[in-house]
């Protein structure tokens, strides 16, 4: 991957564009086809797609000729369908593939084929390097880490130190990023028995990679705290209507419940509906992962206590930037870490309605390619 | 005598939902005989035979085959025991070819279980040629008329290696020509020692083909088996069956008037009938004769709006009439008794619904069914037609064949039908009930209605019709007054050169 920085993060100077070693290339009239394969084309993936389209628009306004082809799997779990899409991208002669995997292991053969066809791959939604396949760039975060951040928000809300709940309030970090590093540092010396509560978990699809990762990350932190008890755990398939039902039943079964961790935005919104109808709107702690316009609003309205930001706008925005750079033969960082971080009532304005995205310097990219 | 009886049924008892249908029936069949089983509709004939063929299990009683007790488990087992049965209601697979239906259940297969199609076809053609029937063995079975299908089913059973053949009203939709072919076959097989149980409502057949007769009434045998057919008389048999005498089997009252109710000119459907013209008068019964496949049924369907006419015009009560669909026909007081009861009756629904479904006046209000009125109306017609069921909410499926037919008739009478199209109206109806149907026809014509009666039953055709239209291969070959008409004349016009 040459001399590009290993991992870039928000807050660092973005668009650290290195001139290509091959020197200038004629880019006039060069059409750049980007194939984008999300596992689903609604909600958060739709947000990512919207920002991709926005970035493409800007790129084209700057004088490039970029085309974005979006094709999602029919089902969130349908790896075989995504494999087909990826194979068809090869047939369609795209220049770069951006993929958010349904199931990493399952789409590896297709990614290998893309490698063999000489098409660079950008993977979004994760950072884990995969054996045997060549990923040119990751835009994402570690799902387990993101869930760990949520776990700390949860501890905070149950009375631990931090910025969210009623516990001891601490100073914000300089860059305002309540990421895993900051939380771990903060909780290093906390007495593990001092925090207690009854918590339920609503997971994504039982058996799904992302669902498993989030559960693992969350439990990794929570299991260190013996008095925080997980009393129920149920899948709701990343789905609002199923989450309402799951949360209703959990609340029915556990009148003493303190908090619910719902591992995605849709399920958190569903949980808040159930909390409201159970008369627990005011005191039930809801923590989630994702970050969408609707959840940010829910945080502002006090329906959700805190959420961990996954940066969907960034996926789209930087995904397209890196894709264009790769298509033009330029160097890109191997990893762009979204840095999953806590959103809460105190910082919600930073995320939506206008996410803070740094402008992409398309002109420099074009100049470098020449 | 060790094996006087090849088959014996002893003290057979059977009930459905607590209703006893067979009350200890005894029945024996000798080798090489045709044993006729007679009885009113609902007497239990079919049920008794279905116990023999393994469709039902008797509540008690024994079956002895060749003197050995046999516990018939299912139809496959019954076949293995040498008993073949042709059911009253057709049981063919409609979507496959004729050969395949003939060999259903034992397709000839070589090693590896691959089917020997050529062999099967050859053998089928052989059977058909021997019997003198012209059926294309490759054609889809459902493309053939009910009569042909009935023949196919009979041949299927006969072509198997069985010792006893049960024929449950095999001739109910056959014309005399086919019946004759069937009888020839039966006589031939009898000589080879094969026994037949023969169920029918056509008494003349009893004397033609029967050797011995057993009569069932209400689930019990009446008297002993009649040992020689010569001992029996038609009147005697009728009395045994219905428990009373019937003076007149064809009680015809002619009410025909010169006033035309329906005039058909040059009707054609482009496929089954061509250039058919006739006039139906107020009070007339116009019989339609013809062989199987002569296009009569399709003509009936077309008149009722179930089939498109490609040509011709119809004048009905003085006005042009286009039979667009059945509901239009019904509004105009047409009624249709279909040849196959399954095409006309809603077997899965109660008697009440079946009788009342086509009538609106007094039974429907604002889209709601008036249940009390329906019940009353249905019960009225059940009494009128002697429909044997304990309640109007019984499903028609559970009735005996003859009673089902009465329900079909009841619907149209209930609807005040003026123009009755009847395709084999007494198919499967017992002698007693038949007279009731004829009386109803008299009532219809007496009230100024008209009947177009398709029938393959010659005595019925001659006895009930005012005029008879004969069809052959879709064309009208004769228009006869029934008074001056004989069976031979009709047959000649219907079959012509094919009879030789």
């Amino acid at each position, binding site marked *: 991957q040459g001399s590009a920085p290993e991992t870039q993060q928000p807050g660092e100077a973005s668009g650290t564009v290195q001139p290509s070693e091959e020197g200038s290339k004629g880019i006039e009239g060069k059409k750049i086809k980007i194939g984008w394969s999300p596992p689903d084309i609604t909600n958060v993936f*739709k947000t990512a797609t919207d920002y991709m389209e926005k970035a493409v628009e800007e790129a084209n306004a700057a004088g490039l000729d970029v085309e974005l082809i979006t094709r999602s799997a029919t089902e969130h779990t349908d790896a075989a369908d995504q494999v087909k899409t990826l194979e068809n991208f090869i047939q369609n002669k795209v220049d770069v593939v951006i993929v958010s995997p349904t199931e990493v292991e399952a789409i590896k053969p297709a990614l290998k084929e893309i490698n063999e066809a000489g098409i660079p791959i950008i993977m979004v939604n994760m950072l884990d390097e995969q054996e045997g396949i060549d990923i040119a760039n990751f835009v994402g975060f570690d799902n387990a880490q993101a869930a760990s951040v949520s776990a700390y928000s949860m501890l905070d809300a149950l009375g631990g130190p931090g910025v969210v709940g009623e516990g001891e309030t601490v100073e914000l970090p300089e860059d305002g990023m309540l990421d895993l590093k900051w939380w771990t540092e903060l909780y290093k010396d906390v007495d593990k028995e001092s925090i207690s509560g009854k918590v339920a978990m609503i997971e994504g699809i039982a058996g799904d990679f992302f669902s498993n990762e989030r559960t693992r990350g969350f439990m990794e932190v929570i299991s260190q705290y013996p008095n925080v008890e997980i009393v129920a755990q149920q899948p709701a398939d990343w789905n609002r209507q199923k989450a309402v*039902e799951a949360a209703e039943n959990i609340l029915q079964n556990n009148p003493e419940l303190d908090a619910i961790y719902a591992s995605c935005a849709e399920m958190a919104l569903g949980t808040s509906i159930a909390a409201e109808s159970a008369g627990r709107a005011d005191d039930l702690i809801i923590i989630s992962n994702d970050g969408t316009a609707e959840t940010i609003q829910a945080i502002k309205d006090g329906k959700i206590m805190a959420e961990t930001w996954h940066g969907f706008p960034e996926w789209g925005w930087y995904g397209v930037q890196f894709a264009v750079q790769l298509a033009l033969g330029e160097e890109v960082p191997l990893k762009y870490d979204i840095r999953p971080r806590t959103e809460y009532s105190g910082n919600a304005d930073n995320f939506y309605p206008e996410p803070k995205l740094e402008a992409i310097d398309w002109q420099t990219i074009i100049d470098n390619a020449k | 005598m060790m094996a006087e009886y090849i088959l014996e049924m002893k003290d057979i008892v059977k009930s459905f*939902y607590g209703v006893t249908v067979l009350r200890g029936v005894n029945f024996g069949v000798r080798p090489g005989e045709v044993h006729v089983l007679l009885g009113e509709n609902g007497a239990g004939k079919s049920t008794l035979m279905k116990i023999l063929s393994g469709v039902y299990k008797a509540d008690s009683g024994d079956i002895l085959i060749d003197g050995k007790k046999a516990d018939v488990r299912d139809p496959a087992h019954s076949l293995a025991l040498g008993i073949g049965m042709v059911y009253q209601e057709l049981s063919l697979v409609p979507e496959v070819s004729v050969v395949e239906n003939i060999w259903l259940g034992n397709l000839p297969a070589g090693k590896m279980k691959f089917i020997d199609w050529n062999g099967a076809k050859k053998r089928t053609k052989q059977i058909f040629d021997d019997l003198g029937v012209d059926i294309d063995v490759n054609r889809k079975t459902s493309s053939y008329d009910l009569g042909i299908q009935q023949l196919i089913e009979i041949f299927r059973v006969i072509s198997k290696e069985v010792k006893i053949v049960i024929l449950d009203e095999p001739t109910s939709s056959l014309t005399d020509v086919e019946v004759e072919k069937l009888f020839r076959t039966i006589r031939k097989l009898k000589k080879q020692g094969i026994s037949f149980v023969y169920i029918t409502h056509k008494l003349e057949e009893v004397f033609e083909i029967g050797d011995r007769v057993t009569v069932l009434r209400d689930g019990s045998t009446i008297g002993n088996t009649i040992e020689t057919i010569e001992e029996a008389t038609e009147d005697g048999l009728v009395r045994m069956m219905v428990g009373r005498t019937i003076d007149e089997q064809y009680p015809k009252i002619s009410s025909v008037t010169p006033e035309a109710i329906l005039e058909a000119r040059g009707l054609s459907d482009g496929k089954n009938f061509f250039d058919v013209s006739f006039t139906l008068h107020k009070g007339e019964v116009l019989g339609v004769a013809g062989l199987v496949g002569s296009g009569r049924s399709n003509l009936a369907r077309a008149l009722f709006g179930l089939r498109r006419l490609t040509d011709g015009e119809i004048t009905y009560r003085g006005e042009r009439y286009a039979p667009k669909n*059945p509901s239009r026909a019904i509004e105009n007081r047409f009624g249709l008794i279909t040849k196959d009861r399954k095409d006309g009756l809603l077997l*899965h*629904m109660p008697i009440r619904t079946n009788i009342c479904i086509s009538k609106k006046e007094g039974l429907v209000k604002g889209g709601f*069914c008036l249940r009390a009125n329906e019940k009353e109306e249905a019960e009225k017609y059940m009494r009128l037609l002697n429909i044997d069921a304990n309640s109007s909410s019984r499903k028609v499926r559970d009735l005996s064949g003859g009673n089902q037919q009465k329900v079909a008739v009841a619907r149209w009478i209930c609807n005040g039908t003026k123009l009755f199209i009847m395709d084999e109206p007494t198919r499967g109806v017992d002698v007693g009930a038949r007279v009731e149907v004829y009386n109803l026809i008299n009532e219809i014509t007496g009230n100024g209605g008209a009947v177009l009666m398709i029938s393959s039953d010659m005595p019925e055709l001659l006895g009930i019709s005012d005029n008879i239209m004969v069809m052959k291969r879709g064309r009208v070959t004769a228009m006869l007054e029934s008074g001056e008409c004989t069976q031979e004349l009709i047959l000649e016009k219907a079959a012509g050169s094919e009879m030789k």
Partner: protein
Amino acid sequence: MKSENTVKKQSAGYILQKFSAIVILLAIIVIMSIGSENFFSGKNFLNILNQSAVLGIMAIGMTFVIITGGIDLSVGSLMALSGSVMAVAATSLSVPPLLAVLFGIAVSTGMGFLNGFIITKGKIQPFVATLGMYTALEGVALLVTDGLPISGIPEQMLAVGSQSAGGVVPYSIFVFAAVAVIGWILLDRTVLGRNTIAVGGNEEASKTAGIKTDRTKITIYALSGLCCGIGGLVMTGRLNSANALMGDGMELQAITAAALGGTSLAGGVGSIGGTVIGVLTIGVLNNGLDLMNTTPFWQKVILGIMIVAVVLLDSWRKRKFND
């Protein structure tokens, strides 16, 4: 005398047959009550009814369709589409809530009509026709909502699915009950209902009896669309928002509910009461297994086995008391 006896025996069998589904449901309730201390309570029963309402409303429409001998795989998409249309109309297009609701219901009824039209006039199998519609309409719903959940819906529109009478009994339950009662009257007492049963049992014979079979079927598919429209309204209230995929998988659940209630997929046989019991059986199973804290994988195994067990038991009972 003989016939009286018969009637009595028959009706005893009949009652047992008719109510075997209820007996099974009660048995499940007993088991669940033993399995979880929180199951048997008025509040939880209201909870179950509320959770079952949308499925119930759709299953009643589905029952009619199945009785005609058809099937409607598009109900999930239709429900989501109707909710989405209402939501978008009431928010982005600022249509007054009542009008928006009517519009949404009209759209899904219209699409139901289209289903029926294609099936009868094009003479194609309901399974494929409605499967195609399911895919196409999901696409339409996604286009309408742009793939995002629609929130910020006016309170009046959400009330049916989110509020409770006296703060206790959710309105959704009343809607379910009303649809069930109307459905029952329609099927048992009206000409349309009778024709539906006739057509499903024997189309040819129905035609001969003068029933306009195509018209009957089209009406029934439109009716199913109507139920989906109402379901969409309730669901939107329940989710406080609408999205294009909120009906996913509900077609199979609705069919299962009808089948559990004794409706034959061959057509001609079925009852609304049975379907209501079927819906409740599914609701109780889901809720009870949740409350019993079974792990998710085992929950699937048990749920699947229970479905099979319920129909097996029901079929066994029917045969036992019928012959």
